[in-house]
């Protein structure tokens, strides 16, 4: 629903990068380069952001 706060595998805090990552990806930047730039280097942390979908907007009408 919301981005995980930390990487499941190594425990690095990745949640803080989500908003920058998704905004820059929307602008058409290469996701790999954005992740490098944000300092998300390990592939365990990268998949946390690459594979995430925000679902709050989907769920909120059914509260």
């Amino acid at each position, binding site marked *: 629903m919301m981005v995980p*706060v930390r990487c499941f595998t*190594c425990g690095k*805090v990745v949640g803080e990068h989500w908003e920058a990552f998704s905004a820059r990806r929307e602008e058409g930047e290469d996701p790999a380069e954005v992740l490098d730039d944000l300092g998300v280097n390990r592939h365990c942390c990268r998949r946390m952001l690459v594979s995430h979908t925000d679902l*709050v907007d989907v769920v909120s009408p059914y509260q």
Partner: protein
Amino acid sequence: MTGLDVEVVEDGDRSMRFLVRGITPAYANGIRRAMIADVPTFAIDTVRVIENSSVMFNEQISLRLGLVPLTTPVGEFEEGDTVTLALDVSGPGTAYSGDLVSAEAMVEPAEQNVPIIQLKDGQRLELEADAVLGRGKSHAKHQGGVSVGYRHLQRVEVVGDLEEFAVDEPRIVRGVIEDDGELIPTSEFDHDLRNRYPGKELSVEDVPNAFVFHVETDGSFEAETLVDSAASSIGDRAAELHDAIQL
């Protein structure tokens, strides 16, 4: 053990790399484990929810709050001490870790921008939370070290030239290499020895009893502090054992 030979290879706020010579693998692993499990950090443990009309359950929000790293001053608190934090955010908008207000200036969120929950119009989140000083042993949220590990130092020597038509295969090495006593992180030549020694035949071997540690923290304290606290925790336990066996 008489004086360790330590060289810092890379030094940053939250991550560092250093080489230690003259220790056994068991000793290196002891330091690694102490960094992961024995350096206490603050993490939110108990949450009293006053109002939560967001799309997430109280338990889910508590879990997210628990994972937010909190700055932990060394030596100021005892294990088990608590610090109270409060959060009050009304939608529309997002509640961030930076919105947590701490009762103790030394213990506050290390990251300001971790989204806790997105709130829609009319939704509200108000809560009080107790952060406890605990060890990584009891829960991963108390782990100060993130991806702490070590590798052997690799010694690279040029043996000769490659034959003219020899197959040019990649030689991938990760970590730190030693070339004539000089320490070079492999990231400098994209982890491929061909880039540094084109057309050379090489011998690569582990340097016995030399370990390169890579240490990263979650922001609770600096990497240097983590190593320092881990080392003294081993020392303290050794002293405790020493005292316990005195008749």
